[in-house]
C-alpha cells in the first residue's frame, strides 16, 4: 500500500507527497502534461528539445545543475510522446534547493540564445547517436509514419527530421514555454524523507505566486479505424533481414489495454513465451523476437519484431508469426498460462516500487491519468482479465486490416 497526501495550489499546481522515512533522500518529481503529441507537424522534436533547454538557466538563476550538485543532488529528465518528466534526488535536508530551482524555471526560463544554439547541436548529436548511426535506427520513424495516418504518434519524440530541431527559433521556444509550462499543467510529487505539511508550506512559498496559464485544451486528431493492411519494404545497409509488425490497440485505462498488455506477455514475455519458444527455439526462424507495446495514453501499437535467421525468407517468417496468432485466436490459453502472466505482472510492479524515485514517477503519471489511487489498485485490472477476454481481444486486434508491416531487407 503506497500512501500519499494531496493538495492543489490556487494556480492549479497539483502536489502529492509520499512519505518514506527509511531513506535519507528526497525526490522532487515534476511532470508536465505535454509531449511530442502536442507538437505541430512542422515543428516536431520540440517537446524534447525543450526538455534540454530547461537546464539552460532560469530568470533568476543562471545555472540549474551547479546549485543542485552543490546541495548533494542529481537530476535527469525524459520526454515521451505523452509527457515530459523532470526529477531530482537530493539529501532531504537540502530539499528547499529543489523547490527554489524548480519554481524559478516554472516561473520563467532565461531564454538564453547561447543555450538554444548549443542544445540544438546536442540534440542533433543525440539524434545521430540513437537513430542514424545505428543499424535499424530508423525503424520506428518508418513504422510510426506507416501505422498512423493522422494522429501525432506518427512521429518520434526526437522529431521527424534533424532540420526541425535545427530550425527551432527563440519565438518557438517562448510560445511553447508559456503555453505548456504553467502550474496548472503540471503535477509535482515529493517523496522520501519528508513531512507532508512542511512540503505543502514550501510549495506555497515557492510555487504559490507563479501565475496560472490559460487552460490547455488538447484537441488532437483521432486516428480513424484502419481499413486495409499496410506494408512497407525497405532495403538498407544492415547485416540481417528484419520483420516488424504492429496492430492498433486501445487507450490506457481501457479494459483492452490491460488485455493487450497480457497478450504481449503471453507472446513475448520471457524465454518461456510462445514466440521465443516456437520461432527461436523450435522452428529456428528468428535469432531474436520481441513482443511489446509502449504504454501510451492514447491508442497505441502492439508490436512484434525480430531478426530473421539467414536463409529464412520473409514469407516463411511472416507465416510462422501468423500461425501463432491464429492459435491465440482459435484456442483459449490455459488458465496456468494466464496465471503466469499475472504473476509476472505482480512481480514487475513490486520490483518497480522498490525505488522511491520510481514510486514518485508512478504517482505523477497516475495523477495525470486522472486516478492516483491506481498506484494501489491497477494490479486488480490485470487480475480481472480472463482467458475469454484474451481470446476475444486477440480476435479483435490481430486482423490483417489492422496491421502495419515493414519488411526490412539487408542489401548485403
Amino acid at each position: 500500500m503506497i500512501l500519499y497526501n494531496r493538495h492543489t495550489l490556487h494556480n492549479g499546481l497539483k502536489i502529492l507527497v509520499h512519505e518514506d522515512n527509511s531513506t535519507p533522500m528526497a525526490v522532487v518529481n515534476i511532470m508536465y502534461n505535454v509531449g511530442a503529441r502536442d507538437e505541430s507537424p512542422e515543428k516536431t522534436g520540440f517537446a524534447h528539445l525543450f526538455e534540454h533547454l530547461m537546464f539552460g538557466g532560469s530568470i533568476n538563476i543562471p545555472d540549474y545543475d551547479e546549485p543542485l550538485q552543490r546541495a548533494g543532488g542529481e537530476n535527469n529528465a525524459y520526454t515521451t510522446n505523452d509527457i515530459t518528466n523532470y526529477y531530482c534526488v537530493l539529501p532531504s535536508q537540502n530539499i528547499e534547493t529543489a523547490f527554489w530551482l524548480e519554481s524559478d524555471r516554472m516561473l520563467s526560463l532565461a531564454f538564453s540564445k547561447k543555450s538554444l544554439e548549443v542544445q540544438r547541436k546536442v540534440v542533433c548529436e543525440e539524434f545521430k547517436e540513437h537513430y542514424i548511426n545505428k543499424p535499424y535506427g530508423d525503424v520506428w520513424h518508418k513504422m510510426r509514419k506507416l501505422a498512423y495516418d493522422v494522429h501525432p504518434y506518427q512521429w518520434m519524440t526526437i522529431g521527424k527530421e534533424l532540420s526541425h530541431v535545427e530550425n527551432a527559433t527563440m519565438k518557438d521556444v517562448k510560445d511553447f514555454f508559456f503555453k505548456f509550462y504553467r502550474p496548472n499543467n503540471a503535477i509535482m510529487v515529493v517523496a522520501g524523507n519528508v513531512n507532508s505539511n512542511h512540503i505543502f508550506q514550501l510549495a506555497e512559498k515557492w510555487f504559490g505566486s507563479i501565475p496560472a496559464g490559460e487552460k490547455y485544451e488538447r484537441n488532437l486528431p483521432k486516428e480513424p479505424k484502419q481499413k486495409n493492411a499496410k506494408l512497407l519494404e525497405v532495403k538498407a545497409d544492415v547485416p540481417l533481414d528484419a520483420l516488424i509488425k504492429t496492430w492498433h490497440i486501445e487507450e490506457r485505462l481501457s479494459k483492452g489495454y490491460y488485455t493487450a498488455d497480457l497478450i504481449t506477455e503471453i507472446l513475448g514475455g520471457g524465454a518461456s513465451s510462445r514466440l521465443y519458444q516456437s520461432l527461436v527455439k523450435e522452428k529456428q526462424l528468428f535469432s531474436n523476437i520481441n513482443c511489446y507495446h509502449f504504454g501510451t495514453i492514447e491508442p497505441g501499437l502492439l508490436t512484434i519484431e525480430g531478426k530473421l535467421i539467414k536463409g529464412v525468407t520473409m514469407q516463411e517468417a511472416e507465416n510462422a508469426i501468423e500461425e501463432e496468432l491464429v492459435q491465440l485466436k482459435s484456442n483459449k490459453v490455459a488458465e496456468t498460462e494466464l496465471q503466469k502472466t499475472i504473476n509476472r505482472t505482480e512481480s514487475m510492479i513490486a520490483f518497480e516500487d522498490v525505488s522511491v524515485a520510481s514510486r514518485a514517477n508512478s504517482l505523477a503519471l497516475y495523477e495525470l491519468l486522472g486516478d492516483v489511487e491506481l498506484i494501489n489498485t491497477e494490479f486488480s485490472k490485470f487480475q480481472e482479465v480472463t482467458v475469454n477476454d484474451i481470446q476475444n481481444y486477440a480476435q479483435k486486434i490481430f486482423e490483417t486490416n489492422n496491421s502495419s508491416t515493414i519488411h526490412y531487407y539487408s542489401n548485403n
Partner: protein
Amino acid sequence: MANKKINNPSFRKQAPDIIDTAELTLQLQPYNKYQLDNGIDVYAIDGGAQDVLMIEFVFFAGNWYEEKNIVAATTNFLLKNGTKNKNAFAINEHFEFYGAYLNQGSFNETSTVTLHTLSKNLPELLPVMAELFTESIFPEEELEIYKKNNIQQLEIKLRKCDFVANRLIDECIYGIHHPYGKYTSTVDFNALQRDELVLFYNEFYTQGKCMIFVAGKLPSNTIELLNKNFGHLPFNKNKALTKEYNCVRASQKKQFILNDENGVQSAIRIARPFPNRHHPDFSKVMVLNNILGGYFGSRLMSNIREDKGYTYGIYSFIQNHIHETEWIISTEAGRDVCEATIEETYKEMQRLCNEPVSEEELHLVRNYMMGSLLGNVNGTFNIISRWKSYILNNVDENYFYNSINTIKTINAEEIQSLAKKYLQPDDFYEITVV
C-alpha cells in the same frame, strides 16, 4: 522570515541555505554473515518495504579461467538450457510462472547467477536453482542455436562504432590474450565444443569456488532454506585458482578505424593503464576523475557538451577490474567535430595539470560525491552490491570510510599533483572509430 521573502520577488535570487553534504557522517550498514554446512559463505542484508528479494551466486568462473575464448560466457549462458530432468523450456517456465527473474552474467574473474523474486516464492525456486549447479547437461542442439544466434547478433554489433571502439581500446591497454583485452569473433563461436563447456562447468560451477549474496525482505527461514538446498552441494572443491596474465600494450598509441563510410558520428576512447583499488592513489584519483568527467558538471561535459555542443555526452571513469584497470574517457561525437573533441579533451587534462582547482569547484565536487554516496548506501540492493564489490576486491569497510575521508579532505595541491602524475598525454592510448 518566509513571509517577508514572499513580498520581495528578489528572494528568488538567493539560494536557500544548505547543509554541506561533505560534513555528513555516512554509515555503511554491515552485512550478516552465515556459513552453510559445506562452508559456503552467505552475506545478507535484510530490510525494505516491498516483499521482494534477490539472491546472487558468484562463481569464480569468469574468462580469467577459460583455456579457450568464450567458454566461460557460453557455459554461464547455457547452464539453464537443460538439466538431467528438465529441458530449457521447463526451466524457464518454472521461474517465469512464479514471476521470478533468473539472470546470468559472465565477467572477467567471476560469473553470476541471480534470482529476483517475490519473497513468498523462494521455497519453490531454490530447488531448481540447485539443479542448475549440479545437473546441467548442455544439450548439443542448444549450443548450436546459441552459436547461430550469437553470430548473427555479433554481426549487428560490429556495425556500431561504440561497440568496436570499446573492444579496441581494451585490446590496446591489456592485449588480445589478456582476459580484460580479448574479444569474440565468429570463428570463436564456431569453434566451441560441448565437451569444453561440460568440463568448465564441472570444475568451476559444480565443484567451483562460490559465494552467495542475499538482500531484500528476507523470510526468517531464508538461511535455513539456503542450507537445505545448497549446503550439501560439492562447491569449493576446486582450490587451485591462481592464474597470472601479463598485459601487452599496443605499440601504436593512436588508431583510426573506418568502420562505416557513411557514419555521421565517431566513437572516441582515450585511455591509460591504471592500478587497482589497493593503490594509495586510487580513491584520490576518484575525486580527480569526477572533476574531469565523472558527473554532469564535470570539465569535459561543461566544455564539450554544454559549451560547444559537439556530443550528447562525454564521460571519464575507472573500470571496475580486480587485478589492474584502465582510466578511460568515452564519447560519441559528430564526425566533423571529432578532432576538435579530442583536442579539447587533452586541453582539459592539461588545464588540470597547470592550474590548481578552485576551492569553489572542489567544494561542489565534494558535496556532489557525498550526496551521491548517501543515496547509494541506502536500500538493501544498493548496499549488498557495494559489499559484493568490496569483498571481491578484497577490501573491507575501512575502504569505504577512507574514501569518504579522502573526499572530505583532499586539497587542490594534491589534486594537481595527481593530474601531473596521471594525465600526461603521452601515457594515453587513443581509438577513433567512424
